[in-house]
């Protein structure tokens, strides 16, 4: 069982380190799209998840709800991982 909290920490670390500019403040509740998260950011994020968790998030799961913020995204990944 993988905890969503653990995924959340990893995602935040990745987004701060490799996607967002240094001056952008990212918390688990930050609205990703409003903070400049674009389609290349999405590509980077999906690749990070694939490399670190070993699966490609199905396109049908890449919804506005799942990508609302890091917390929602971590919950989606935890649900998909734990259903495997």
């Amino acid at each position, binding site marked *: 069982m993988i905890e969503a909290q653990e995924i959340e920490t990893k995602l935040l670390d990745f987004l701060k*380190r490799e996607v967002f500019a240094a001056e952008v403040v990212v918390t688990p509740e930050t609205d990703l*799209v409003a903070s400049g998260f674009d*389609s290349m950011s999405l*590509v*980077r994020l999906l*690749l990070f998840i694939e*490399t670190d968790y070993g699966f*490609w998030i199905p*396109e049908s799961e*890449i919804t506005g709800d799942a990508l609302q913020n890091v917390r929602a995204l971590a919950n989606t990944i935890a649900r998909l991982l734990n259903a495997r």
Partner: protein
Amino acid sequence: MNLTELLDKTASNWPKKVALIEGDAVISYAELVEKVNILALQLRAFHLSSGCRVGLCLPNSISYVTLTFALWRINAVVVPIPTECTEEEFSNITVTMRLEAIIGQKPRGQSTLLSADCFYTKLISATPTDNHGINIAFIRFTSGTTSARKGVVLSHETIRDRVTASNISLRIVPDDTVMWCLPMSHHFLVTIVLYLSAGATIVLARHVLARPFLEAVNEWQGTVLYAAPFHFALLARDNSEIKIPSVRLAVATTCSLPQDVAENFHQRFGLRLTPALGVIELGLVCVNDDPAARADSVGRPQPDYAVRIRNPDRDGFGEVVFSGPGFFDAYDNPWTPREQLMPDGWFATGDIGRVNAQGYLFLAGRKVAVINLAGRKVFPEEIESVLNRHPAVRESRVYGVAHPHLGETVEAEIVLNQPDAGLDSVRAFCREHLASYKIPTRFTIVNALPRTPVTGKIRRAAAVA
């Protein structure tokens, strides 16, 4: 001629027609021209020299469009700077392209506020430029190796010719509404300029997630989609019941279209994707607009263009070369005119491909080492040059790895100076010097890199399947 004449003509034919929609802002062609004229007046006050180069670093917006046309109005050359650039990449473009000024969201030193969302900065250190008598409108900077950094130079006449040639197949008309989601800093000429010269309406989509995008298509009755296969893959997998019956044309460009994406999109929406091949030096040369043709072909050349395969092997695969109107005028840095690069009138794109009996072009790889990550070009040498500057890295090799959803991904092999050095600092170093999408997804630490037997150079890897 000047490209603003195309916009003026549209505004005079259809002044009240909606030109651009961005969120709640809806502006007509007459309003667009007025905004361009006011901005041009503001820019004139800065006394820029005629033919000077101005960097434009803005996200997709109505301002992006108005500023581009305003710069053209005062005979300045537009050099797009992608917003994702790091400071180092930004400064490389500024110096290599010899920019006289920059317009962007950030104030830089002595900047002047130009409008609510952008600043004008005059660069004092700019060296004078020689445009070699060419009426330059636009220069696209490409990175590559340090020695291969160059600009693709396009004149007003060239852009007009390629816009005209591209619309023979696309048939964009004033009744069209184009749903726009690609970055304008990478795509502007045979897209935005074409749509505006044809009198179409452009809707700037807020983001590319399937549901809000499909809702926006229906809200504005979009008729044309122009996006990368990655975007169409997202749309094809949307699990709502939303249909988009108003769309007549969905062009998939920037990288080859995976067959499953083409099939899934067709199943989900009852609409066939139209693969197309665009090359910055040439324009939109091929469009596969025949629904009966195989979707893995980029199509036949548009009527004004011709394609040949140079030095084909037994199976017909060889170097893809094109001839046609509106090809680039020159490379800058160093200045190399088109005639010198293609004395026989044919330009080699660097692609390997074959043409079947019906004249359809099938691409099968590239001669030069460039990685195509979801439509964005990544040059291995550029990333290696950053990696090799890290104190813990002795040498590196960057290559593309085939990926079922993205075309290719970027990976790196590195030889470390210090065996116990961690990869975290290498990743952080990459982020400091490279746009996010260029950072390798996976690093492999190796003891040595493969070298070619004669020259001892690091052997460039072909894409790994």
